């Protein structure tokens, strides 16, 4: 069970219609790869976030399938088109079934 998972997202507060904005996301997660061993030589079981999705008003921006080779505290930077005022939804899916969510609204300005 992953503990202390905290998503952080950086989105501009305002944008003009049709503008392309840069989004940065970071989520604190240990991303245990399943390759490491503990002191007794037992494999530490894999525990990662395996999928990240960013939507805007229900329309998809990016959908990332993640493997253990993504670093601890997964970071993504990408660009999104903002057609109108609305809300970005960010969702991370954990191996253990947990879902972490974050939302940021963008106003026209």
């Amino acid at each position, binding site marked *: 069970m992953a503990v202390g998972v905290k998503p952080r997202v950086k989105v501009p507060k305002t944008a003009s219609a049709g503008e*392309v*904005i*840069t989004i940065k996301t970071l989520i604190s997660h240990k991303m245990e*790869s*399943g*390759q*490491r*061993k503990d002191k007794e*030589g037992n*494999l530490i079981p894999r525990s990662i976030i395996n999928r990240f999705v960013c*939507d*805007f008003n229900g*329309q*998809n*921006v*990016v*959908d*990332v*399938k*993640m*493997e*253990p*080779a*993504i*670093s*601890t505290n*997964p*970071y*993504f*930077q*990408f*660009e*999104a*088109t*903002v*057609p109108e005022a609305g809300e970005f939804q960010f969702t991370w899916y954990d191996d253990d079934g947990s879902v972490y969510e974050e939302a940021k609204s963008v106003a026209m300005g």
Partner: protein
Amino acid sequence: MTFSTLTFSRRETIALGLGAATVALLPIPAMATTDEAIAAFTGGADVADGGISLNAPEIAENGNTVPIEFTADGASAVMLLATGNPNPDVGTFNFGPLAGSRTASTRIRLAKTQDVVAIAKMEDGSFTRTSATIKVTIGGCGG
């Protein structure tokens, strides 16, 4: 996927002085699975060179977190592979209708000095690839 073939820990093998043997054994299974991963993504279609750029450091001091960035104009999906990792899969980026560009950056783990491959699936169904060699001073897998 291929954990069974590579169940040793790097730190242990190096501590035991078997590093050389490990390096000699690694490329064969790793390359095979890279090809498998590419085939699974492309469905066996031809993969052209170019049309995608991969921005990565030449030397990464810490293999645990290597920043990489790709740009693939006109791509609908981009798969990243680390050919020298125990499991070459890194991630697949699928771009939706509101993606502002076909650019993304993230941070990945690299077990050792190796080639990182990016394969883009274009909107017309064709595939294109590029690769970059990254020197890793401290590996980021296991141990």
